């Protein structure tokens, strides 16, 4: 997309909402929940029907929202829903159906602390649910982890592109901090929405009405014949493999000469970036591997860094979820430890640097 020099101060949730409009979204279906209600509020105030023709509808529940998304996605439309953790739990049924029918769509979770009603404060405790598949069946979705308000905006266009490239769900895994904070955002020019004719041409699988020149299109995940269902599942797995081969994204911050690295994503990565600055000022050679895609996970990069560094510390606002994938990547080559805060608490930069020092440096023994 082309940047416009149109720079605004926006909340992460507002940037996401503006992003989907400008990326040519056809429909948004959602239900209010803190800390992501600004998405639906912002869209409702934008008069999107007049601005781009985009449909915005407040559904009766998150369950209805995700199935409205299903109906629209099956017509080849660019559709979106967003919620926060408890609402995302309700949507898992729909995610599984979307996976089974290979429908493209864009989702966002502004994660808050759980379990249960939990808290409205930021958290990263939905990693397993999102990355390992919260609904039933063998499936994956592409998971993008924004660490800034600009990325909340940029990942909408990227998300749609990936969703339609692979016919897959793309989840933007944000959190209350990224959703609620304001930063500057550079906006792009408005992309046009596809016309129905363009959709018919581009997405021949879509249910757009059976015309005489083609067989009927059926969107279903059901096949009672196990042999056929296995073929279908193998096809899905092959697609997930293609995604793993082509779509890994991460950012290395001061990793080149690092003796220790943090691994983190989202707002934790921002905290770690500060901790890297504080550590470097103290003479500690510390770096940060910031994950951008959580699926596909950068196992190879973790493996490479594991051979270089003396210790890896994962920082998560959870009891330790992503750390399992980091350990898989490290595969025993280096010690991997986890530090997390729970219940909506964000660790401080000094705090995580201190943990790094206590864990790896002060306990260092020389043979």
């Amino acid at each position, binding site marked *: 997309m082309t940047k416009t020099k149109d720079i605004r101060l926006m909340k992460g949730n507002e940037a996401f909402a503006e992003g989907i409009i400008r990326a040519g979204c056809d429909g948004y279906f959602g239900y209010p929940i803190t800390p992501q209600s600004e998405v639906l509020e912002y869209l409702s105030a934008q008069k999107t029907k007049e601005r781009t023709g985009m449909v915005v509808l407040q559904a009766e529940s998150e369950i209805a929202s995700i*199935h409205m998304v*299903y109906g629209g996605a099956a017509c080849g439309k660019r559709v979106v829903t967003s919620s926060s953790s408890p609402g995302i739990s309700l949507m898992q049924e729909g995610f599984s159906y979307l996976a089974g029918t290979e429908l493209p769509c864009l989702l966002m979770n502004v994660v808050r602390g759980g379990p249960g009603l939990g808290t409205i404060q930021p958290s990263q405790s939905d990693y397993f649910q999102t990355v390992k598949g919260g609904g039933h069946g063998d499936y994956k979705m592409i998971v993008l982890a924004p660490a800034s308000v600009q990325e909340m905006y940029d990942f909408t266009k990227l998300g749609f592109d990936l969703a339609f490239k692979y016919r897959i769900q793309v989840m933007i895994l944000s959190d209350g901090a990224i959703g609620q904070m304001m930063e500057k955002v550079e906006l792009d020019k408005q992309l046009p929405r596809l016309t129905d004719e363009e959709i018919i041409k581009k997405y021949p699988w879509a249910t757009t009405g059976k015309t005489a020149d083609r067989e009927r299109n059926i969107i279903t995940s059901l096949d009672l014949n196990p042999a056929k269902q296995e073929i279908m599942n193998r096809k899905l797995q092959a697609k997930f493999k293609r995604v793993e081969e082509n779509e890994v994204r991460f950012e290395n911050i001061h990793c080149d000469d690092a003796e220790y690295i943090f691994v983190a994503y989202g707002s934790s990565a921002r905290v770690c970036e500060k901790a890297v600055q504080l550590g470097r000022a103290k003479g500690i050679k510390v770096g940060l591997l910031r994950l951008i895609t959580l699926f596909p996970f950068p196992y190879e990069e973790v493996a490479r860094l594991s051979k270089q560094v003396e210790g890896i510390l994962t920082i998560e606002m959870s009891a330790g979820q992503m750390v399992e994938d980091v350990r898989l990547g490290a595969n025993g080559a280096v010690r991997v430890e986890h530090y997390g805060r729970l219940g909506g608490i964000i660790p401080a930069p000094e705090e995580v640097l201190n943990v790094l020092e206590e864990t790896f440096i002060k306990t260092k023994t020389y043979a």
Partner: protein
Amino acid sequence: MLDTVPITKEEICKPENLVYGRTPLMTDATLSYCPGCGHGTIHRLIMEVIEEMNLQADTIGVAPVGCSVLAYDFLNIDMQQAAHGRAPAVATGIKRLMPHKFVFTYQGDGDLAAIGTGETIHACNRGENITIFFVNNGIYGMTGGQMAPTTLPNMKTATSPFGRDIETMGNPLKITELIAMLPGTYYVTRQSVHTAANVRKAKKAIQKAIEYQKLNKGLSFVEIVSNCNSGWKMTPVESNKWMEEKMFPFYPLGDIKIPK
């Protein structure tokens, strides 16, 4: 004994003698429904009306979970299969984004009036410009005859083997009367397809419902009280008789809400 020449099949089966043909909107697949079941007739009626109104290229149907989960095998139109109870939400998504298409759901009683009650009531209340075909046979057919929200008092099912006890299992839900009270519904009717006369009436109701959607009038809702001879453990003939004697007094046929 009359000295007549026997008429051959070839002499009868001529285009000029054709009084009834199967709509091309039904596929060649053999119906998977039990012999005597009403689903086949209801499928055919909807497809006939869509053909007569020349709507095949403009129709998107939503199949539910239940016996008619495979409806798309028999209907020669674009279709989506929805999660259990979610068809009205799926149809909302389709219709909002493709407002010029004819969008319908085809749902059973468990789907529409139990697990999907919320989606049903809210789609109706919003006045979504879609058409809901609701097949009510008072039982969960596909899963093997368990109690449904519409199961009659004292009716025996796999999960109410001694009859539906109102005290402990609650009352049958007259969802159609309920949604008729909502301002978003435009046309609400209850029909059956167990006799030729009822088939003709049901077809007229289906025609109206589709016509109203074309006119953007809001939600039309056609309930069809039908039998489930397998689930009810009766012969088809017995089940139709039982339907007349037991179901219709509780679920009386006729229009419930008609346009003013």
